[in-house]
């Protein structure tokens, strides 16, 4: 039986790991390599790293840091943040990452996605969609660290990305990020039904029950965890951790 993937998603800011709330203020979490070592020791199934300032700073991914991370990791790794070209994707995948995560560049040019998928297979490309509720509680796709509304609906954008050849979609609710209040099950359900590629739920997970809910009710193929894996409890101190195997199995089977 294929296990539902439960993926700690770690945010990189320069060369440190941080955690944000609603894409805003950040807290230091620790050293990327040491944290990867801990997740290795915890036998976590997969990790995702997102560099939250690469696009804003218009710079390349930090390949040195990625190399350090890849040499520590003995599980599948994804990287996102400032990936704008096939060339960059190639470098990252050759370093030892399984997948690249594409966000900003897709708004200008979907063909980058197609190019990467053609060379490396669609399973190597994850499209990242960040969305927020705008007026009248209508969700809209946002872009960039300044969270600009794009006018696109989540469903329509997801379909466009699927057509471009992505292997998976990482769907992040900005409003729920860092809130421990549960995933946006309704949205996940809509998107999972509309596309045939796996959807990874992200934003708001606060408990193992939330994981069960979004998979069983929302149809998420995988879940990304943020706050839950880096804090002891909501509102309390930093503590790198991963849900107990038994607890995961009990909600996912």
């Amino acid at each position, binding site marked *: 039986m294929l296990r539902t993937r439960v993926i700690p998603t770690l945010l990189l800011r320069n060369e440190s790991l941080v955690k944000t709330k609603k894409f805003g203020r950040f807290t230091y979490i620790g050293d990327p390599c040491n944290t990867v070592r801990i997740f*290795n020791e915890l036998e976590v199934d997969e990790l995702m790293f997102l560099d939250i300032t690469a696009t804003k700073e218009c710079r390349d991914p930090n390949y040195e840091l990625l190399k350090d991370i890849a040499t520590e990791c003995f599980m599948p790794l994804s990287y996102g943040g400032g990936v704008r070209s096939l060339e960059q994707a190639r470098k990252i995948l050759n370093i030892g990452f399984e997948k690249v995560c594409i966000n900003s560049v897709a708004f200008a040019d979907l063909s980058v996605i197609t190019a990467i998928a053609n060379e490396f297979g669609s399973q190597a490309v994850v499209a990242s969609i960040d969305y927020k509720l705008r007026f009248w509680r209508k969700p809209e796709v946002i872009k960039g660290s300044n969270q600009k509304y794009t006018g696109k609906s989540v469903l329509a954008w997801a379909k466009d990305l699927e057509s471009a050849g992505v292997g998976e979609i990482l769907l992040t609710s900005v409003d729920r990020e860092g809130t421990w209040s549960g995933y946006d099950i309704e949205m996940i359900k809509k998107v999972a039904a509309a596309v045939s590629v796996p959807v990874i739920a992200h934003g708001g997970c606060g408990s193992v029950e939330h994981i069960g809910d979004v998979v069983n009710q929302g149809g998420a193929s995988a879940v990304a965890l943020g706050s839950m894996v880096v804090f002891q409890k909501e509102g309390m101190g930093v503590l790198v951790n991963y849900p107990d195997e038994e607890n995961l199995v009990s909600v996912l089977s």
Partner: protein
Amino acid sequence: MVVSGDKELMKCTRCIYDNRIPNLTFDAEGVCSSCRQLEMLLEQYGTGKEKGKRLLQEIIDDVKAAGKGKTYDCVVGVSGGTDSSFLLAKALEWGLRPLAVHYDNTWNSAIATENIRKVTASLDVDLDTHVVDNKEADDIKRAFLYAGVAEFDADTDIGFVQVLRTAAAKYGIKYIFEGHSFVTEGLSPVGSNYLDGAYVADIHDRFGSMKRKTFPNLTFYQFMKWVLLYRQKFIRPLWYIDYDKDEARRWLTENTGWVYYGGHHLENRASTYAHTVWLPQRFNTDYRNLTLAANVRSGKMSTTEAQAIYDEPVKADPELIEYLKKRLRLSERNYQEIMTGPKRSFRDFKTYKKRFELLRPLFYILAKANLVPMSFYLKYCFPIEETG
């Protein structure tokens, strides 16, 4: 056997300390000054006796009274290690409402984080942490290596205290519990392992390249603020009670799922490096004698057993050294330069030592009032003789 110069090797008749330890003296019975100091502390704190029970109960009552109406009444510093984990459990047993506080120096192993997680979860205790920026942490560690001082992990020790005190202030808590036990650990002899905020700052200023923004330094000003203005009480409860580490570990494993990491401070990669590589290889110092001597004194081990363990050189993990080099961006050449470079001590840097000595009467009063640990007074407020 000749040790250094013309000194003959002299061993304590009670524990396994010998005269290679600086500032260690022996009395007419051949008992070392550390053993005698321990005797004095046992008497003073009534460890494991009625006196100790009574003194501790008074403290517990004070903690409860001072914490009325607040979410937490005491701060317990945790590291994932035996002492602090056990202390947390004891605090609950005593009817207190602790806040667990951890200083994350970004070098934790999974055993440390998992132990903290399991213990706080099963005891249902909240955790507050301060995480230093890892690049700053690396810059400080690199500075210490290039400085060539023995106290490789001094920044963590100092940072830990500052974080505890800061957390206590943030939540309006007066009492700080720390898990040191002079019975199980002994007192690190005067002259070795010097730590203070000025020392850490000077080493970093001279050999580092970044500004300190997130490192929680315990400067003199901070120290006096916590002690005189906030009047925080720094308590070491394990000094008052019978404390057996093996029993503590058994209890923890059975009741919380806590896991033993194999040796003193080996739950953190930085302190593991300090204890298994830096100190033995650079300074010919093996701090296992602290625990071993303590075991001998309390009758857990014979001197022969302890000596046998101690005579076996401490095991270093080559993978850990590779990790350190990778993390601190040191080439093999850099590392060799560091390992063969000049050695220095606290005497080569700015410290608060003289100030502490001058203020000895004040610190005596503060120690008696539990505003600073008595061990601090004994170690810092007396001049240290120069060693050869």
